[in-house]
């Protein structure tokens, strides 16, 4: 199933207290070299049918009017990609297709 990813970030000019707290933790734990951290949101919209122009227009509207609030946030990206579950399924399928080729355990492997 296609997955549509919408990325939303707090507006660049606004203070992001969550990001600031994480930046503080990085500095405290000795991870220097990071001048800032900002935290945004990633939405994954899963659809059954085809991703056509009508759906894309709908996604654009949802992203701007519901998933984000333009007073405080920006939609920074809308991506059309496969879901993690789908990628995992594909990997499992690929693995099972090769299962009949057998697996010869190296000497010493016990499981």
């Amino acid at each position, binding site marked *: 199933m296609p997955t549509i990813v919408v990325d939303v970030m707090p507006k660049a000019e*606004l*203070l992001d*207290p*969550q990001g*600031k707290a994480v930046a503080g933790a990085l500095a405290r734990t000795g991870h220097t070299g990071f001048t800032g951290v900002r935290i945004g949101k990633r939405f994954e919209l899963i659809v059954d049918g085809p991703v056509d122009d009508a759906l894309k227009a709908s996604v654009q509207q949802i992203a701007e009017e*519901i*998933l984000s*609030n333009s*007073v*405080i946030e920006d939609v920074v990206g809308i991506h059309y990609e496969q879901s993690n579950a789908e990628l995992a399924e594909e990997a499992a399928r690929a693995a099972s297709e090769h299962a009949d080729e057998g697996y010869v355990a190296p000497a010493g492997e016990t499981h």
Partner: protein
Amino acid sequence: MRIGVITFPGSLDDRDAQRAVRLAGAEPVALWHGSHDLEGVDALILPGGFSYGDYLRCGAIASLSPIMTEVVDAANRGMPVLGICNGFQMLTEAHLLEGGLIRNDHGSFICRDQVLRVENTSTDWTSGFDAGQEITIPLKNGEGGFIADDGTLDRLEGEGRVVFRYVGVNPNGSLRDIAGISNARGNVVGLMPHPEHAVEPGFGPDTAAAMRSGVDGLGFFTSVVQRALVEA
């Protein structure tokens, strides 16, 4: 006068708001977010709390509730609407009020008795106060930082629509110390602090006279009742 208090999933202060309405001499009407019926009320209160767990954004999902269609219509027709805390966040998400509320600049939840200056006494909810009057009511929020772009802030100030400003300390990083605003007509008012928690001696903020004797919040509710009587 009948004043509706809408309960959303996660509302906390709906009962307090109903009590404040009763103490102000009006009849509180409990309304449910999932309904499309305002039950003929004369005014509306959107109470504080954490509707829908503040998922997505504070007040965002509540602003899409079924009853909000009727709330927006009623507000645009001139019905008095007061949004307190989470209710204020809903009003901004529903585009009845401008600006937005973000996480407090210091990152912490805050709960304190807060001094406010009433800067506009012509709204439906503040007509009983004196211009410039300082009042003390509880403030309790994690995401109460009011923000808007400079043009909007200038316009709000220019049109006298900054109804309340924080005095003494800015508790959450709100731009220009703004604690509450109104729409152009003055019937829709939203603020982060909680007037409904300062309506009855023994349960309000401390005053110089006695502990927990502060009832500065009562003026919000008596204002709207008084205005209804004048117009009747």
